[in-house]
């Protein structure tokens, strides 16, 4: 399989190194740009599967780079990185056409998890589904019912959304912040471990003694839905 080509636009050499190394370790091919102009040249010349774009660049604002990319029909998914971590900055980034927004400081696992989700979305796996099935677990999206081995499982509306999100990203690691953003539409990080306890409760509802575990904790990063690795 071809390595995914990722453009890293970041003027801080240490951060750029750090991201680059993490991408190489995860079989991706990073290409680095240290300024907005360099980024625009690289993006218009080469085909990238995703772009990691810092918000504050020495010559241009990251938002302007993003707008220029979109105006130039560069459709690669973009994750914005920024030390301006406020909710409003995130909303501004997403409004300008970013696919995701990550505040500094961030963990590489968080960046990698988000990149993988974007890369898979970019791979054209868009299909209209009415059911999600994994082994004996079946989720009917129309009647909003969940069964496992014929046994009906009652979920609250948000638990249902949480399960659907996890199943749609089966096999991928999703972080707590990603779940807060995608399932609850919250762009802030509560101090308590609300996501962990939500996952625990969902796990208890899905998994009876003897069932194969479906929700796996990825230590220090988040969760993965699917068969045990």
């Amino acid at each position: 399989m071809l390595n995914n080509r990722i453009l890293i636009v970041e003027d801080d050499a240490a951060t750029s190194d750090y991201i680059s190394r993490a991408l190489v370790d995860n079989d991706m091919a990073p290409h680095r740009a240290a300024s907005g102009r360099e980024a625009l040249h690289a993006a218009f010349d080469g085909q990238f599967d995703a772009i990691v774009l810092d918000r504050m660049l020495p010559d241009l604002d990251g938002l302007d780079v993003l707008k220029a990319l979109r105006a130039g029909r560069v459709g690669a998914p973009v994750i914005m990185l920024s030390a301006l971590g406020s909710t409003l900055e995130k909303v501004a980034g997403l409004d300008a056409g970013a696919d995701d927004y990550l505040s500094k400081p961030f963990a590489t696992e968080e960046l990698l998890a988000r990149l993988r989700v974007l890369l898979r979305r970019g791979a054209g796996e868009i299909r209209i589904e009415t059911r999600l099935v994994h082994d004996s677990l079946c989720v009917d999206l129309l009647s909003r019912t969940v069964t496992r081995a014929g046994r009906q499982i009652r979920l609250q509306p948000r638990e249902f959304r949480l399960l659907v999100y996890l199943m749609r990203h089966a096999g991928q690691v999703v972080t707590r912040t990603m779940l807060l953003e995608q399932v609850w539409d919250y762009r802030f990080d509560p101090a308590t471990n609300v996501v962990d306890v939500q996952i625990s409760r969902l796990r208890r509802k899905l998994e009876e003694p003897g069932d194969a575990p479906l929700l796996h904790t990825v230590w220090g990063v988040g969760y993965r839905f699917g068969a045990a690795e």
Partner: protein
Amino acid sequence: MSRAAAHGTGLFRALLAPAAMHLAGLAAALLFFAELDRREDARATHAALIATRSALATLYAAHGRQALIDDMDARLRTPEADQLLLLAAPNGRILGGNLDRWPTLLAGDSAGQTVTLADWRGARGRDAAVVSVRLAGGERLLVGRLEPTDRSMTPPLAAAAALGLALWLVCALPFLHARRRRLAELAAAADAIGGSAPPPRFHGPGRDEPIGPLAGALDAMVDRLQQKIDDLRFVIDSLAHDIGAGLTRTRALVRQARIEPPGPSAPDPLHLADQHLADLGRTLAVAIEIGRAEAGQAHAALEPVDLQRLLTDLVELFDAAAEVEAKELHARAPDRLIVPLNRQLVSQALANLVENALRHSSGKTITVAAAREEDQLVLEVTDSGAGIPPHRLPEARRRFGRLDSRAPGTGLGLTLVDAVARMHGGCLQLEDAGPGLRARILLPARCPG
């Protein structure tokens, strides 16, 4: 220009404008009184002319033309120099009187008008008030009086004006001087703000003066600024303390990891260091969020929010955590309560209040409610725990204030709630729920459409 000279020029300017206004007012008053005087004179003259005309006409009717001419001659011999009399025959010939011709624009019968005499004893264009009557024999009789050539100011009025101006100058000068000196004091006090000395007071003790309210408002402004500076200093100190302590712990853990590999049962120091860094990041993010909300930048992101939906979402996020703590979380909001809010920040503020209740309250139930109360919108989180004693409430609201220093958290929770409330034009209230604590976000009620 020296300061004294500038002061002098300024004083002169300060005097000039009120003095000019005073004089203008005086002139207007004089003109008004002079006009009144003139009208009164005109009325009296007119009455006298009518009376003379009647007397002469009666004489003519009783004794004939010659008697009238004789009487006119007698009247003109008296020293009333401004008296005018004229008798003209039906063919226009002058029969008697002190005018040499009948005024052009005067009719035979006039109840009273002003005419201009083309030539009066060498002076041209004298005005006169006249009445006339056509007599039974066809003669025309004119009775008139010359208007005065100039109307000088009535002497007592002019004297009063001069005295008023003099008195005004005597009274106003010291007053204006004192006011300028006071303004200079205020300017000096304003100059001193931001210096190393303690902030100056504008309103002197026991001073009762016209600019007292201004000085009081300036003092209140200085107090508010000082409070903000104190708050900011406290935040910087607290942030420095928290970040410094966190970084020290993190460095120690990294160093430990470099020196000795973790034992199988001991926690991984690098993992702990990572957690410390995540906590520091969270503190920083909240501090940034508060800064943005307080700077009013969050206004741009107001959107219509259904409060029932917002509270249900929040309860669905926290209910599992409440279950773990053996607590119950309830939402209560009326249907279709839709108001423009910053959904993210209001959710975050309410989440902070719910987290506080989950963490600190020993009570079993926590209620999150929204309601419209008269012209206010109330968002509140109530717990059934021990509450906070009234004397410790200010401490709880203070940035980085932690009533229990061992408890986790950034200490910025209530500060963020307060900032979000103020950003929406409202405020945060903490009150006793008897038992428990009720945190109320009071917002001005605004409903789109």
